[in-house]
């Protein structure tokens, strides 16, 4: 019987092609917007999470000055001194490494005339472990031939960004002075291909600065030069195998806070929660906007259905006269409006996915950002069911009106 009602509804939709299509267009514009927003939103979240988990892995967390993330922004001057050796001794911690950023008075190698350049430059202290154990976090630092990375025992050595090396007239083997102390250059970073690539391969290490202008020295040396850290950018901690990262992070945070360090720990879970919250806020906002267009589509369906009920008053009378129950009439009209919703939903899903693929292709071409498009079967199924429901709900009132018509009155209607 249901099948027959579908057939009757389909006949009447097909009978008024233009109006049905216009109504369906009203529905699919809304659905297109919703599908595109959801699939791009989910894709963005997935892309960010993937990247964060690439950088972090599941066994790493970072220690950062209190308030770096979240409301309040970064306190650039938040003071905290972290003793990496103490950190390594905390239960469950396998390895720790830190990045520290100072501005140092630097003097380059003398040229043929014996002059050398002097000035304030950014000096970044890197734990050697950063290069060996946290390479995914630091990104690839590719050195020019002849260069080498820091070793655990290195003290007064430096690796130079390409631009800064040129300016300081330094190459592998030459010596520069930082705060009056001599540093041997052990490596020079290969120049980045272009900015975008530099930003990408730099990962989180360069913190917005290109590697070109940075002087890298072993982390511990900065302690000699500048005393205890009050400007550690970030500390990376890896937990021992089998240790729960979030638990270990809590232990470390409590421990260091008790020791007076104004820090917080950030695990993969924290970041992915944060990304999730941010994305769902954005999604909710966009969904609200898309919801308005859905509402407009639904009103369109309702309008069409009222017109249809009016036009087919006589037909309704006939159906009732030959034995249709009120519920039959109601169902036929509900199916009719649901079907318009469903067709709108199907077209909207296809267009919405096409739109988000297009947007993702455009983003990756123009900005070099790769955003996955999430088009799960569940999303499609929910959209289709939802759009049928949307149509059906919009048809409830008109269908009810149709079912309540009195037989003779309906039959007499011209």
């Amino acid at each position, binding site marked *: *019987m249901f099948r027959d009602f579908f057939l009757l509804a389909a*006949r009447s939709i097909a009978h008024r092609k233009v109006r049905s299509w216009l109504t369906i267009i009203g529905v699919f514009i809304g659905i297109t917007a919703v599908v595109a927003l959801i699939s791009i939103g989910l894709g963005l979240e997935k892309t960010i999470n993937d990247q964060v988990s690439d950088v972090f892995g599941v066994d790493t967390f970072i220690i950062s000055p209190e308030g770096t993330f979240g409301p309040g922004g970064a306190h650039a001057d938040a003071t905290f001194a972290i003793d990496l050796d103490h950190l390594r001794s905390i239960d469950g911690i396998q390895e720790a490494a830190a990045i520290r950023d100072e501005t140092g008075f630097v003097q380059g190698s003398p040229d043929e005339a014996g002059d050398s350049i002097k000035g304030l430059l950014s000096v970044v202290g890197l734990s050697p472990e950063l290069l060996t154990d946290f390479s995914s976090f630091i990104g690839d630092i590719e050195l020019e031939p002849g260069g080498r990375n820091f070793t655990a025992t290195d003290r007064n050595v430096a690796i130079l960004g390409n631009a800064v090396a040129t300016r300081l007239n330094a190459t592998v083997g030459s010596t520069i002075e930082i705060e009056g102390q001599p540093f041997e250059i052990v490596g020079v970073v290969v120049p980045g291909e272009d900015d975008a690539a530099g930003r990408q391969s730099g990962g989180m290490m360069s913190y917005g600065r290109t590697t070109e202008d940075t002087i890298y020295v072993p982390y511990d040396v900065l302690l000699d030069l500048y005393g205890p850290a009050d400007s550690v950018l970030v500390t990376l901690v890896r937990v021992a195998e089998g240790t729960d990262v979030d638990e270990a992070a809590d232990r470390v945070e409590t421990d260091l806070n008790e020791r007076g360090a104004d820090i917080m720990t950030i695990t993969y879970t924290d970041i992915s929660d944060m990304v999730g919250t941010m994305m769902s806020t954005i999604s909710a906002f966009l969904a609200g906007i898309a919801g308005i267009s859905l509402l407009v589509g639904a009103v369109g369906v309702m309008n069409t259905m009222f017109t249809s009920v009016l036009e087919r008053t006589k037909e309704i009378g006939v159906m009732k*006269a030959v034995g249709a129950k009120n519920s039959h009439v109601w169902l036929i009209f509900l199916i009719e409006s649901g079907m318009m919703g469903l067709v709108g939903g199907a077209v909207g899903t296809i267009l919405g996915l096409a739109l988000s693929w297009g947007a993702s292709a455009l983003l990756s071409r123009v900005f070099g950002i790769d955003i996955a498009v999430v088009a799960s079967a569940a999303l499609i199924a929910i959209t289709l069911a939802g759009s049928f429901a949307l149509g059906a709900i919009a048809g409830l009132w008109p269908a009810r009106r149709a079912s309540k018509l009195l037989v003779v009155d309906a*039959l007499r209607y011209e």
Partner: protein
Amino acid sequence: MSLLELRDVTKEYQLGKTTVRALRGLDLDIAQGEIVAIMGPSGSGKSTLMHILGALDVPTSGLAKLEGTDLASLSEPQLVTIRGQRIGFVFQTFNLIQTLSAQMNVELPMIFQRLPRKQRAQLACALLERVGLGDRAHHKPNELSGGERQRVAVARALANDPEIILADEPTGNLDSESGSSILNLLKTLSRDDGKTIILVTHDPEAAEIADRIVRLKDGAVRKEVEHV
């Protein structure tokens, strides 16, 4: 006991301030298996009467009984069952559904009785065959002549094999030949299947098949004539 029984039935329509009295105290008894022809001038209330007999409308006052049961006392679902199963109605204006083929129009009453698809199609084709439209099954009403539409309407009225057939001018648009064939069909249904048939007609030939002729004037029975 009469199959159908009307007692002092009135039907009034309120049009603004004026009251149109379509039926004014009409009495009528119809026995099982009878063929009754209802005649009378235009506007005398024939269609109104048929609607009341067909449980499509209710009298303003008076009683309309089917097998002794007052139709006004029945619930809507019970009336739906009567309309769907016990009564076949041929409308004066055919009232076919324009978007459906002749066959689907004939199947429609069976859909609401939940007859299986196959059986429905067979029955519909057989009925169309019976009214001489076997080759028009897939035509839409607007692809049929007036007479052909009328015959589809007759076929639809027979769809659920109802015991009472109410036909409002079933031969009004037909040439005498196809008119006679419809009348013969009705006669056969009465004689062989014991159907009760009430037909409105202006056509003396149609009245020929009736056992009884009821003449209406101004919403009441003016004269009843037994036919022999």
